């Protein structure tokens, strides 16, 4: 079935692009365009369900609802990975911030050990 190829290729392509270019302006824009497209498709699916059914027929899924479900699963997967990567990035910045504070307020033994500072 055509849908199997389409889904697998979509997943692999998106994953590779994502991991390779994550964090660049281009990908950020790409994600937004993808999101808008997704919303438009959703609206179309509501207004003209028969179009979705036609596409579903062409790619070999049968029903339009099934096609929507597959699309949703792929979209959800990528939203999850996107969030995960965003969190990792934030974590790294947060670590750098904490590190800067930690190093700035480092305590040398002379400052903390009364015996040594007295000597």
């Amino acid at each position, binding site marked *: 079935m055509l849908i199997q190829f389409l889904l697998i290729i979509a997943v692999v392509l998106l994953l590779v692009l994502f991991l390779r270019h994550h964090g660049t302006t281009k990908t950020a824009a790409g994600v937004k365009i993808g999101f808008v497209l997704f919303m438009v498709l959703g609206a179309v699916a509501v207004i003209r369900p028969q179009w979705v059914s036609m596409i579903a027929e062409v790619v070999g899924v049968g029903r339009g609802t099934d096609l929507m479900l597959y699309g949703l699963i792929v979209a959800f997967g990528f939203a999850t990975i996107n969030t995960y990567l965003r969190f*990792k990035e934030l974590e790294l910045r947060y*670590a750098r911030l*904490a590190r800067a504070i*930690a190093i700035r307020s480092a305590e040398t033994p002379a400052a903390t*050990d009364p015996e040594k500072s007295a000597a």
Partner: protein
Amino acid sequence: MADQSDVWLVVPVYNEAQVIADVVRHALETFPNIVCVDDGSRDGSADAIRTSGAHLVQHPVNLGQGAALQTGVEYARSQPGAEYFVTFDADGQHQVHDVLKMLERLRAEPYDIIVGTRFKGDDSHIPLIKRVVLKTVVAISPRLRKLKLSDAHNGLRVFNKKVADEMAITLNGMGHASEIVEMIARKDWRVTEEQVEILYTEYSMSKGQSLINGVNILFDSALKTSSRR
């Protein structure tokens, strides 16, 4: 004994109040410069470090061992006269005489970094499951085989200023061991390994990372994006 004032020990500490002061005091007999990075411990580790005579750098929040190592290395490399760096565990499972042996080699031979290995010579003291898992990791990792390293997850490492300056650990958690191996390969650091003995005490066994954490490490390493390199 040779002068070790150009050596810095980096010790990441997380909730080790019970043992850290003793570990540091023992190491201070040989190495005058020790920096302990308290990774947001909640058990008074920081106070224990203050009494021990080591430098204390305190993360305001818990960040993970990888982040603590990076902090310690950054602190140590900015100290005047620092030439050699050692990553050393806080739970007392590493031994000072192993460090001395590694330092001696690093000073004499053309290497940038020497990592400890548990798998040269007799390894029967290592718990069996640990042995099997760690050996499997090496068997399936082409990078480790290429670098001829037999133990990727040994916390004992000795390296020079070049490596310390270039060190940039981005995985905050436990994935840093694989990340360091990856850095060795990418930055062409000259690497070798040295047989060390790990003391599996009851304390270190209870604190050591569980093998199930390997799943987390694999996941983090696989989803590491290239843009951050």
